[in-house]
């Protein structure tokens, strides 16, 4: 059975070194990871397998969403980083989510030098293999409609 994976690629007019900085430096991660108006007050990242990966998000006027920290799984400088929310630092499994809308995610991001810039590919893997069955069976194509309350929903799924 297929797993539930989203794959997104983009040619970026910047060196792999600069894209890598954006993926791994807390102050830079804060600037792109969450959609406006969600803020990212805190980021912790230890670039070694088993190291902490923690991103705290905050909706305007609400308390920060400070969940269990994630874990870095793989680091190939300027080439690839993989981290997961399913494990905490030291590969210790995180307790199950209480909110059923929160599915554990693993992010796998690769960089390849390309056309003087970088070909960036992000794969988001989710722990809901059953969902993709429904999705494929329905002939789901990528939808682009912006739904009401989307941001709030987004914030919940982060």
């Amino acid at each position, binding site marked *: 059975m297929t797993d*539930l994976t*989203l794959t*997104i690629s*983009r040619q*970026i*007019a*910047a*060196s792999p070194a*600069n*894209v890598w*900085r*954006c*993926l791994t430096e807390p102050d*830079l991660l804060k*600037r*792109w*990871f969450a*959609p406006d108006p969600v803020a990212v007050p805190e980021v912790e990242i230890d670039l070694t397998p088993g190291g902490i990966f923690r991103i705290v998000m905050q909706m305007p006027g609400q308390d920060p969403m400070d969940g269990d920290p994630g874990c870095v799984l793989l680091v190939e400088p300027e080439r690839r980083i993989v981290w997961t929310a399913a494990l905490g630092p030291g590969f210790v499994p995180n307790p199950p989510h209480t*909110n*059923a*809308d929160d599915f554990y995610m693993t992010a796998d991001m690769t960089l390849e030098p390309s056309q003087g810039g*970088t070909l*960036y590919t*992000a794969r*988001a893997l*989710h722990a*809901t293999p*059953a*969902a993709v*069955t*429904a*999705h494929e*069976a*329905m002939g*789901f194509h*990528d*939808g*682009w*409609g*912006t*739904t009401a309350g*989307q941001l709030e*929903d*987004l914030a919940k*799924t*982060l």
Partner: protein
Amino acid sequence: MTNHLDTFFSAIADPTRRAVVETLIRGPATVGTLHAPHDIALPTFLRHIKVLETAGLVRSHKTGRVRTVHIEAAPLGEAERWLTRQRQLWEGRVDRLADLAEELEKIDRKDTE
């Protein structure tokens, strides 16, 4: 909605139930037809149908001795919307990441000039 989605995912976490949902997406079917490909006892199979009904994924009605099962589209729609949101989220991330990396690149170029 959260509970609904939770029930939905647990309902289709089972391979027998998932197969039933996949068959029903193509159109309504009788319990007999749905049961045929599965090598399990009918009472066990009926329990799976019951789980799907409780989750609001299917409904069934009896005509004479034949029970026909239909899919309910709404919960599948929720799963689809969840996936769409995830994709929109990642598309937005890539846009912002590209902008930021390209900004850094310009600063680098200025520094070397």
